[in-house]
């Protein structure tokens, strides 16, 4: 076990974490990035398909600028968002984000005449090199910036616990290098959780291999307040087979250089969703699509795990493939493109909620502990928003830096965590494997806390989770004890976090007694702005938890109704 020291330890190497690290370094502080995968290659940032144009950039009209803001607040966050934060974020994206990225060399796709190619319509977007793949060059650029700046990286290293210093404050991170099995303690004055919003907690999930809600679990154990944990977003048209491709999407958004977009067809061959025709304002139409699908499922013409189709048979191949990657998926499966559609299914995607933060600084309820990007609970995702969080958190830390203490971490604190991890690795024998526990947990979340849920199902889910916690986890065993690249051991560490966070999600879902956007309860089908246009705040109390409500201010946009059947609400 060895100890590293930094001014700020950042957990996560996606859009928020990288930007925070770069900005802190520019301000003269010493950041260090801990990344469970590889910086710029892990998490959801890589999946950015395109980049939304905010404000009056690239000839956006006043109406298009307003549409973009309205879309973000309404369709993207169902009004559960600090609208003042959204306004600041939009202004920053317009004035700083785009020029800064281009100055660094990001290639915003041009045509041969030199015009930046955009998607037309009520809300416009651009792509980095190619639509559908924008996150790859975007995050590759960040990775190289981090390397160029000489910011230390602990890659393929999992943060397993926040540790307390001798003042009793959170002052470090306990880590395990997955490749070598070595333990590392990072001591820092401030810690940023930037672990993303796409945790793999459901049977079908866009969350990647490493996303097991570690950030949320560590923050909760440390006593941080959570918010809106129930607000789960879904993709409605991800590839049904094979399982690996559950996060491969038939993008429903407007396409660059075309007036058309993908269409969705039920098992009877009837079209039931086409963004450009059905709801031009729903730029990322995920909630609108989901509601359209729920109606198909009710009519017996689709299932949540398949039996409906998506594709581009309304387009020419060249229209789709000039600026997008969308045709490649079809071709790789041996399908004729664009004539053939592909079977699709629902996949759990972003979680809107997360760690409760002060949106001016991104500080959590615990001094010195910050959260940026998707793991925080103030907004739903978009790579620009996550990047803005990286800026806000670095500014927040720099401003508060002199008041943050730097104290030694007692050996006993680290020793306890080391023993916990060693115990997970040394348990062999006939018990259930961590991979099977993950499968069981994901299945129960899918079956009982899926697209449509109700109190009875969720109480039963809590019973199942309790059974896993009490009967299965104590017997969980792994087959190899090597400390080197032992992914089974990592699975065992992951499972502990997943169980904890799934439980919080179910409790939060039971607490919100309404339906709102993608949060659909069959026992409370109405969107209830009178009682539930509030943050569903979750706090630790003793060994249990309690909820509080905090209303949202509505300075720019408001829903315009009190109570209405959620499936009849556009957003």
């Amino acid at each position, binding site marked *: 076990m060895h100890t590293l020291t930094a001014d700020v330890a950042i957990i996560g190497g996606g859009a928020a974490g990288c930007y925070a690290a770069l900005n802190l370094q520019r301000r003269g502080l010493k950041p260090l990035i801990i990344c469970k995968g590889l910086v710029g290659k892990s998490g959801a940032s890589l999946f950015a398909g395109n980049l939304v144009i905010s404000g009056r950039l690239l000839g956006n009209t006043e109406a298009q600028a307003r549409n973009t803001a309205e879309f973000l607040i309404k369709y993207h966050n169902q009004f559960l968002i600090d609208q003042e934060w959204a306004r600041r974020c939009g202004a920053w994206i317009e004035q700083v984000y785009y020029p800064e990225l*281009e100055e*660094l*060399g990001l290639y915003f796709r*041009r045509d041969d*005449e030199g015009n930046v190619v955009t998607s037309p319509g009520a809300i416009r977007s651009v792509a980095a090199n190619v639509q559908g793949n924008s996150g790859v060059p975007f995050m590759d650029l960040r990775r190289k910036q981090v390397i160029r700046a000489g910011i230390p990286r602990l890659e393929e290293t999992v943060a397993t616990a926040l540790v307390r210093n001798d003042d009793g404050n959170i002052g470090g991170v306990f880590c395990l290098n997955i490749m070598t099995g070595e333990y590392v303690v990072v001591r820092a004055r401030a810690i940023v959780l930037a672990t993303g919003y796409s945790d793999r907690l459901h049977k079908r999930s866009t969350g990647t291999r490493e996303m097991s809600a570690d950030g949320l679990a560590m923050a909760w154990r440390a006593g941080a307040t959570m918010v809106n944990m129930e607000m789960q977003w879904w993709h409605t048209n991800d590839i049904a*087979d094979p399982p690996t491709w559950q996060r491969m999407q038939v993008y429903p958004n407007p396409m660059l250089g075309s007036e058309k977009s993908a269409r969705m067809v039920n098992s009877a061959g009837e079209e039931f969703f086409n963004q450009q025709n059905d709801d031009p304002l729903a730029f990322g139409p995920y909630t609108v699509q989901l509601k359209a699908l729920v109606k198909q499922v009710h009519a017996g013409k689709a299932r949540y795990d398949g039996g409906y189709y998506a594709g581009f048979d309304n387009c020419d191949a060249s229209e789709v493939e000039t600026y997008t990657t969308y045709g490649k998926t079809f071709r790789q*499966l041996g399908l004729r493109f664009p004539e053939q559609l592909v079977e699709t299914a629902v996949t759990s995607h972003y979680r809107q909620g997360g760690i409760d933060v002060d949106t001016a600084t991104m500080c959590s309820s615990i001094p010195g502990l910050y959260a940026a990007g998707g793991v925080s609970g103030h907004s739903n995702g978009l790579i620009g928003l996550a990047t803005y969080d990286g800026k806000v958190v670095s500014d927040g830390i720099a401003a508060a830096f002199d008041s943050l203490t730097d104290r030694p971490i007692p050996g006993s604190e680290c020793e306890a965590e080391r023993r916990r991890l060693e115990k997970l690795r040394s348990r062999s024998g006939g018990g259930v494997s961590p991979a099977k526990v993950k*499968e069981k947990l994901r299945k129960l979340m899918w079956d009982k806390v899926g697209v449509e849920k109700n109190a009875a199902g969720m109480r039963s889910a809590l019973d199942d989770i309790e059974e896993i916690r009490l009967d299965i986890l104590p017997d969980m065993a792994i087959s190899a004890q090597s400390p080197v690249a032992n*992914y089974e051991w990592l699975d065992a560490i992951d499972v502990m976090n997943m169980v904890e966070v799934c439980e919080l999600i179910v409790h939060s879902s039971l607490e919100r007694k309404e339906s709102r956007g993608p949060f659909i309860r069959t026992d409370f089908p109405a969107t209830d702005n009178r009682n539930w246009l509030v943050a569903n705040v979750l706090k630790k109390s003793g060994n249990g938890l309690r909820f509080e409500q905090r209303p949202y201010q509505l300075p720019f946009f408001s829903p315009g109704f009190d109570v209405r059947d959620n499936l009849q609400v556009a957003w």
Partner: protein
Amino acid sequence: MLDTQTSPRDGASRLGQDEHDDTLSARNSRFAPGASLVVRVRREENGRTRYDTFNVPYRKWMRVLDALNWIAENAATDLAYRWICGSKMCGTCAVRMNGREVLACWEAVEPEMTIEPLRNLPVIRDLVVDRAPFENKAARLEPWIERPVAYQGFPEPLSHKQMKDASKALDCIGCMCCYSACPVIGLGDLTDFAGPAPLVQLGQTALDPRNSPAKVARSLALTGIFNCVSCYKCEEVCPAAIPIVSRVIEPLKAKAAQLVPEMAGHARALRRIVAARGRVDPGALVLSVQGLRALARLPRIVRLFLRGKINPVRTLFGTKTVAAEPARRLLGREVPR
């Protein structure tokens, strides 16, 4: 006739695919429901290696990664293999399947598969390789932009025509398939060749017109790029379908010849000789590239002579061929001295 169901890649890489039932549509329809596949996996830990065999039930449109996931969940829970995104973006799941490099999340399974780790990189355990040699080489080339003139504000003047080659390189996901397939990298320390993957990483910015030529020259000088033998192995295995030789390495070689001419001694000499004589003259090439140093390797020279590779008489006294005039017309003006 080219089958529209196969990859959009044209040309030589598809030759024989139809005849060998190896088109994408054939690869995706080899199995009947309920079939199972035989998967042999190379296991390695602490220098000990073995091959384990598994019967894996087929699932619709199964990828190689699905098969590995099935094995790790059901048969060998201690199997070490790396993957992050599962959708051709992170580039961390590349392995060799039946001897060729594939991205596990992207490639369709075969009825019988032998899965091995990538070559040319140290194995950490089982299928997990150490990415550091590739990462360090790429970082050493400083694959970023230094602007010779100040940025003019968004959006700056730039067209896709200018970005055509760089844009291809920007599809790179750093999966190292090409690095594993490259025979020159396979020679180890015998050359100073950076390898295809680091060159593609460099190409993203070195082929970008916004980059400073001085910066590009500095990076190119570290690449050993003229060790590339243009065998197209890299291009053949690239899951992102980047034309690595024709759109990245060749344009970079041209840039190197222009910006760092001393790197291109061999290529420039060859061109000069062809322009002057209308034919390749190996003897002249040896003399031109090695000069008097050639004499220090006399036994080798003798061997080349005995095998008919060089002909000193022809080199010293040989006349131009009829092709000299057209060759000069085509090449002469452009040969930098």
